[in-house]
């Protein structure tokens, strides 16, 4: 996951028609049109050049001013632009016609002004400017939609990332402080054991810190952490906690989100074994089945107790995390194996490293 998702450069987002590209297209289009105008006209050469330049130059300046005006007034999108563009489609052609007329009469003393010719020119100019407006609006609309889509995607990604962070499970402070309390006594009672506990606790803490930075870990690494965790709980619970691992060697390199099994083991201890005066057994079984890693964490206890209170929330978080990473191909279920055993089953696809990596 990226650390931050930056907003697109906002300075251009509100403007219509890109900067340099707009000038190039504007020049090319009006230039081409001017050349065509020149080629298709008749009469003295200088008059043809002059009128074509006046005609197309005014059109280019007019539409350029139109764009500048729309940007300045921060007009964007068809509903806001339609009125100024409609007005422009009538005014700019008038300016074009006027400029042409002025050039031909003033510079070349072409004093015969035929009304229906001027009107025909004006109508042609209206068509040209209308086409310009249509092209501009279409391009603008496409651009706007693209920006909106990018923004929506960015917001969705931000939401997902923050949700994902919130879903990461951390070491339960309860466990941590109980551990330290036990350690305090062990230092007097059994120094070697105390040193062992410090080592285990350091390893586990290091693992949880790393879990914050990586998407997935191998089952081998996760199981090492689960083992560290359970060994620490064993220091607290002593004979009340019995641990059993049954691991398929083929499953050890399969990937899964970090802290997932640790959370399940912690749930099993907290809601199962810790509540039983005589304690119980916690069993971790892993295997690879039909391209999926399947891990079962089974503990002595009652399902009704396990699904009450905060345990349900912890599982919901873990489920949501799996859904975000693997979609529908991963699952996490909590079932009663028999009357006195609760089993949490995780299924994660083997090949996928998750959507996010």
């Amino acid at each position, binding site marked *: 996951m990226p650390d931050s998702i930056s907003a697109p450069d906002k300075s251009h987002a509100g403007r219509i028609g890109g900067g340099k590209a707009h000038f190039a297209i504007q020049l090319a289009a009006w230039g081409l049109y001017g050349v065509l105008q020149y080629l298709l006209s008749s009469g003295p050469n200088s008059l043809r050049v002059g009128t074509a330049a006046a005609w197309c130059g005014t059109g280019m300046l007019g539409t350029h001013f139109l764009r500048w005006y729309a940007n300045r007034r921060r007009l964007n999108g068809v509903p806001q632009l339609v009125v100024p563009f409609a007005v422009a489609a009538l005014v700019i052609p008038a300016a074009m016609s006027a400029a042409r007329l002025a050039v031909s009469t003033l510079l070349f003393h072409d004093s015969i002004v035929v009304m229906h010719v001027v009107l025909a020119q004006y109508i042609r100019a209206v068509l040209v400017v209308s086409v310009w407006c249509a092209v501009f609006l279409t391009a603008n609309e496409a651009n706007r939609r693209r920006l909106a889509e990018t923004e929506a995607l960015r917001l969705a990604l931000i939401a997902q990332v923050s949700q994902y962070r919130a879903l990461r499970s951390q070491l339960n402070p309860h466990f941590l*402080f*109980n551990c330290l*309390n*036990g350690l305090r006594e062990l230092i007097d009672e059994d120094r070697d054991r105390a040193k062992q506990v410090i080592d285990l606790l350091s390893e586990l803490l290091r693992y949880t810190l790393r879990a914050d930075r990586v998407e997935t870990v191998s089952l081998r690494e996760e199981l090492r952490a689960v083992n560290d965790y359970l060994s620490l709980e064993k*220091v607290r*619970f002593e004979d009340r906690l019995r641990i059993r691992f049954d691991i398929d060697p083929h499953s050890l390199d399969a990937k899964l989100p970090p802290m997932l099994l640790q959370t399940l083991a912690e749930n099993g201890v907290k809601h199962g074994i810790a*509540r039983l*005066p005589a304690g119980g057994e916690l069993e971790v079984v892993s295997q690879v089945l039909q391209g999926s890693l399947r891990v079962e964490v089974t503990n002595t206890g009652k399902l009704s107790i396990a699904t009450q209170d905060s345990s349900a929330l912890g599982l919901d978080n873990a489920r949501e995390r799996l859904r975000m990473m693997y979609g529908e191909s991963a699952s996490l279920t909590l079932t009663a194996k028999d009357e006195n055993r609760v089993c949490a089953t995780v299924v994660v696809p083997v090949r996928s490293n998750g959507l996010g990596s």
Partner: protein
Amino acid sequence: LRALIIDDERLARSGLRRLLRSHDNIEIVGEAANPDEAMRAIHKTCPDILFLDVEMPGCSGFELLERLEDVPVVIFTTAYDEYAVRAFEVSALDYLVKPITPERLAVSLGRARKAVAALSMDSASKTVGQSALHQIFVRDGERCWIVRLADIPLMESEGNYTRLHFGGSAPLVYRSLAAIESRLDSKTFFRANRSQIVNLNWVEAVENDIDGRLIVKLRGGKQVEISRRQSRRLRELLSL
């Protein structure tokens, strides 16, 4: 002071025992690892102080207190304080967070010593067999109290339950008024009528009703009508 340590972790118990060694006026009369052991130990040893782990197998520390008739001075121990802090908003009750530090333990013991002394001065209770009734644990929904009987001005019967009025709260306890009355000192607690018992130490004024019955005004503003028969007894008691 006689203390009982209740915690399901052996290391936690021996750690606390070690910490208490440096306090010479504390005698540890026992340890318990679960609520059942704790109940037996409490009945057998009648401790002055309980060191009680909030989180326990079988039932929580609170449930254990609910099962006790008379509640000693309690110092809760907890690894993470949200539980204790949330539950006890009203009663002045102490708790230690784990790992327990010697300094904080010394402070708690000082408070506990005062509380035990105050309880033994209470004339509110009478001794039945070995145990006296000094304070009771009350839970009403999310809120908990350990309340001294001397601090309760008025108790009211509600079927099998009794409503205790104290300090602006009125929680219900699942004990009949008669059951509670049998453990009360009749010099302090007076049966006003069929459904109410008043604490005479809280009486502010006594007034005569028109038909010869008494009305008792309690500090804090509550008024209680005394039945005709009990009015006569109260007059004798107060030699009015």
